[in-house]
């Protein structure tokens, strides 16, 4: 997950070639937008957050240590931006029943999803992710989609590795519970 010749493009930007930054924006825009979206839960706020992330990255590029991964550094800016935006918006999330989280069986969720077409599956997964708390949705995204290591997630979010493990464990189960509920609602609507 890196732009080819990333270091070279960063060097060009640092030497004053502003246009070289466009390549980095183009490559990372969806990744950054997704981090912002999963926390703010709103496309407009996510766009503002993502734009602000790239502006901050551009202004502070000199402080970026080349030995670190540019993506991790960029994701940290995005994450912090989104979290502060979320605090301003004071977002509230639906709470998930603790007993359901403890007793969840993902077999039901998996079989329920397997009965759906691709587009519908994607739709329900996105709906379920939107119901998760921003931090949880992001942890799941960074770990499973972006395939960041726990240490890299710690670098991005500032959360201790042991805490990330606990949060990931809970988020996985919660996502499964939410998916089960959504699929059950869908089934009831059909019947």
């Amino acid at each position, binding site marked *: 997950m890196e732009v080819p010749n990333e270091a070279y493009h960063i060097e060009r930007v640092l030497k004053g070639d*502003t246009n070289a930054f466009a390549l980095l924006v183009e490559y990372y825009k969806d990744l950054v937008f997704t981090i912002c979206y999963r926390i703010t839960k709103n496309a407009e706020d996510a766009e503002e957050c993502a734009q602000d992330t790239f*502006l901050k990255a*551009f202004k502070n590029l000199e402080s970026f240590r080349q030995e670190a991964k540019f993506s991790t550094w960029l994701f940290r800016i995005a994450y912090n931006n989104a979290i502060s935006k979320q605090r301003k918006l004071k977002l509230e999330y639906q709470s998930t029943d603790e007993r359901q989280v403890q007793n969840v069986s993902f077999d039901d*969720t998996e079989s329920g999803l397997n009965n759906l077409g691709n587009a519908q599956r*994607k739709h329900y*997964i996105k709906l379920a992710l939107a119901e998760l708390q921003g931090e949880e949705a992001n942890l*799941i995204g960074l770990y499973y989609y972006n395939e960041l290591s726990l240490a890299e997630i710690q670098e991005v979010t500032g959360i201790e590795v042991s805490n990330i493990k606990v949060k990931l464990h809970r988020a996985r189960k919660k996502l499964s519970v939410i998916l089960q509920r959504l699929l059950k609602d869908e089934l009831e609507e059909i019947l």
Partner: protein
Amino acid sequence: MNTEEDLLDDFMRDLMKESGLEKAPSNFTVAVMSQITAETAKAKRIAKPFISLRGWIGIAASVVVTCIAAIMTLQPSTRELPGQQQVENAAKGFNSLFANLQFPLVLVMSLMAIALLFGLDQYLSRRKNISL
């Protein structure tokens, strides 16, 4: 990690890969780059002083050289420069504060000229920044 956890782990990985990324708006890169271009241009305009540091060093050096040359070569003249009397009076008043120190007229005038130029530079720079 037990088997149940392993399965859940694999299941989540498949789910997340399937859900993909949220798509940023199509004009996103253009919007970011236009903001960056505007910021860069603004920063350049603000950072550029009316008289550069090199210019100031040049002015200061030429003034110092002129002062030294004037002190070493000029003879007392009977011809009065415009405003010389006022400047001399001001210098005398200033000198009375520091009775033991003597300031040559050329030095006082040069310092005043530098102060005036510096003040003008600051004023014009500020006006330029405000008008951006």
